[in-house]
């Protein structure tokens, strides 16, 4: 039985992991390599690295950090942030990424998904979508959640999958940073229309939020979070034990 995955997300700027609230108020907190190692040892099933730097210096620093992590951590790594071209795919894959997540870059040029899937395989292309309710419909936001694209989220996700996205990360802007649980309503809507794995993101505040997610929505494959892991509010080893106790398939790492 395949397990439900727990995925810590590391937002990296200037070589450090940062975490904001509702996409603003960034602050630096830790070494990505050290965090990645700790997470891997405590049972994280996968890691996501988001490059949130804008400058080319920051970009070089990011790939250094990624390569250093990939040399030391042997679980799947997904990389996102600023991915706009096949050359960007190539750059991060050469530094040890296993999957590449596209967001604004795919909105600007949807053919990026299919072109990348053709070269690297569907399993390599993750479509990350930031979604917010606007006038009662799910709307796609770009540029780190700052810009309403006007796109209907369900239509966009369907299109992304048909272009070749092998996985969806659904980040609810409405619940992000609020720590009152994942956006189950939005996740249900998405998981019912796609046949590829769906990763829930945005809103987890405690272990119970993950349990509720997997019990309510068995079609959701993974839960992603950042600060609650970084600050130790949720410990992955404990979360995994609690999942197992609730009969949710989980991979327990012996420490």
């Amino acid at each position: 039985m395949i397990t439900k995955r727990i995925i810590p997300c590391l937002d990296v700027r200037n070589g450090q992991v940062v975490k904001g609230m509702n996409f603003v108020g960034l602050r630096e907190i830790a070494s990505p390599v050290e965090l990645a190692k700790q997470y891997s040892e405590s049972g994280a099933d996968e890691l996501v690295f988001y490059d949130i730097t804008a400058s080319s210096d920051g970009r070089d620093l990011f790939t250094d950090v990624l390569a250093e992590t990939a040399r030391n951590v042997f679980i799947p790594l997904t990389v996102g942030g600023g991915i706009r071209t096949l050359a960007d795919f190539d750059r991060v894959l050469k530094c040890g990424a296993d999957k590449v997540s596209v967001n604004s870059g795919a909105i600007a040029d949807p053919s990026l998904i299919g072109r990348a899937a053709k070269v690297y395989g569907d399993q390599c292309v993750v479509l990350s979508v930031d979604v917010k309710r606007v006038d009662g419909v799910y709307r796609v936001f770009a540029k780190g959640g700052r810009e309403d694209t006007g796109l209907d989220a369900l239509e966009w996700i369907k299109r992304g999958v048909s272009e070749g996205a092998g996985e969806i990360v659904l980040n609810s802007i409405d619940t992000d940073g609020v720590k009152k649980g994942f956006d189950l309503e939005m996740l249900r809507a998405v998981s019912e229309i796609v046949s590829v794995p769906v990763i829930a993101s945005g809103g987890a505040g405690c272990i119970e939020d993950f349990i509720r997610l997997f019990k309510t929505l068995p079609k959701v494959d993974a839960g992603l979070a950042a600060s609650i892991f970084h600050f130790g509010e949720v410990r992955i080893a404990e979360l995994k034990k609690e999942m197992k106790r609730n009969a949710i398939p989980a991979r327990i790492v012996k420490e």
Partner: protein
Amino acid sequence: MTVIVDYGVGNLFSLRSSFGAIGEEAVVTSDSAEIEKAERIILPGVGAFADAMEKLRASGLDASLRRAAEKGTPILGICLGMQLLFEKSYEYGEHEGLGFIEGEVRPIPVDGLKLPHMGWNALAFGEKKHPLFRYLQEGDYVYFVHSYAAVGCDPSVIARTEYGGAVTAAVAKRNVLGCQFHPEKSGALGLRILKAFCEIKEGEL
């Protein structure tokens, strides 16, 4: 020394790093002489079967691998690299493989489950545990990413996993071994599989 075959398919960064992590010397090469005199060989691979076989043939590495296999060099195929060891694959058509192990590669019959089979799944070893898994226990989890799987290879199966039915997770025929999952992405346990592979003596196979 371990030789990792580079034939232009897939990402060798993690594989190379994982040998570093277990303190085993490994060299990435596309040189047939180096492959034929290797102590042991890793055949990696990500992507499409036909494309990978084409690249092996075009570079003549298929023949080098065959000579290495025939003289008893331990070979470990990983993911697509394992699938290439079989006689045939039905991924986008019908394609001939290296034919080192009897069996063929077909789509996983998932019956409503998602494809690819992507994530951590448990290994079952059957009656006798192969030396490749000497550091693992029944039910340990490893990381899979694949939509096709080997079938018709029962005598060679050394581990299975469960995804809408039994799925071939690892195979061995004397010195030719294969893992459908990614040991280099399966955490500490995955590294122990690579370590066990490096420790295998010819007489054990």
